[in-house]
């Protein structure tokens, strides 16, 4: 499955050499769970993503084991009990920036656009919509977006002993530092 994603992304990138293709292999996804008992945060800084500035097609994927926790015990539970990363090694998103025309990729500035797509975690796919901010500067494009996800929507079961420590809704920050493909 990982290989098919890699080929799909390359095909996606290659297809549009005539169009405007942006890509990153060092995108960041951060998540944060807050409860009165405990705050949990982690980040993955090796997210692979491609964005087509003409059509608005956008996708990204990351390895679950690539989420870096400050606390080693939390990382163990995340991988082995909740996300089962050996069985479901990646998460992915495939969607479209619906009003990509609002973003002028040739002119430095800050633009906001809506997007919609499908997020897959643990082989469960759900629709996601939101808005992303695109900052264009010196030919580079940084997109940022915030979403909230519910673990139970993606079959992430939390044992009764841990429910008080993990928020029902997790805040997720998605930050992509795109550069234009040659």
């Amino acid at each position, binding site marked *: 499955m990982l290989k098919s994603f*890699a080929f799909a992304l390359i095909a996606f990138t290659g297809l549009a050499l005539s169009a405007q293709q942006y890509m990153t*292999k*060092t995108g960041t996804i951060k998540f944060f769970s807050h409860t009165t008992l405990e705050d949990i945060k982690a980040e993955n800084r090796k997210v692979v993503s491609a964005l087509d500035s003409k059509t608005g097609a956008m996708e990204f994927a990351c390895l679950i084991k*690539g989420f870096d926790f400050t*606390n*080693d015990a939390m990382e163990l539970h995340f991988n*082995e009990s909740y996300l089962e990363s*050996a069985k479901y090694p*990646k998460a992915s998103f495939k969607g479209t920036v619906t009003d990509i025309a609002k973003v002028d990729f040739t002119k430095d500035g800050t633009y906001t656009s809506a997007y919609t797509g499908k997020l897959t975690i643990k082989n469960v796919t759900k629709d996601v919509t939101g808005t992303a901010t695109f900052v264009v500067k010196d030919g580079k494009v940084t997109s940022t977006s915030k979403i909230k996800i519910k673990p139970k929507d993606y079959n992430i079961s939390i044992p009764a002993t841990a429910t008080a420590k993990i928020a029902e809704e997790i805040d997720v920050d998605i930050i992509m530092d795109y550069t234009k493909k040659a």
Partner: protein
Amino acid sequence: MKKTIIWLFIIGIIAAGIVIFYFKVIAAKHKDPADAVKISLTAPELYRMFSNFEDSANKMYTVRDMAIKVSGRVQSIEQNGSRYTIFLNSNDMMGAVACEMDSLENSSVKMLKEQDSTNIVGFCTGYLMDVQLFRCKLAK
């Protein structure tokens, strides 16, 4: 006297339990990759394993607390926030071995140039266009 000794013993056990719980759970630290290396190989060998036998490679190299030592030539270096990622040449145009360095290594990473030979220890997280490693350190 006997009761006091029993109580002191119980309190000692509880205190030891609290200390162990604190260091193993609340303040559990990640292993240093330099102390956890079990396998050494070249970047092209590691990339070839993942691109040809991904499932087996995942089982072999993405084992928790098991670091690997990878040797290879620097293809490129990218900065993401306060960290650097060194991409080692895999001899395959499809991808590289992407090593996200510990931020404590920043000053040493800045000395590296493209095509330099280097050795890196780190924890492998899998394959996604590139073979990915994190918490990496430069090694001899």
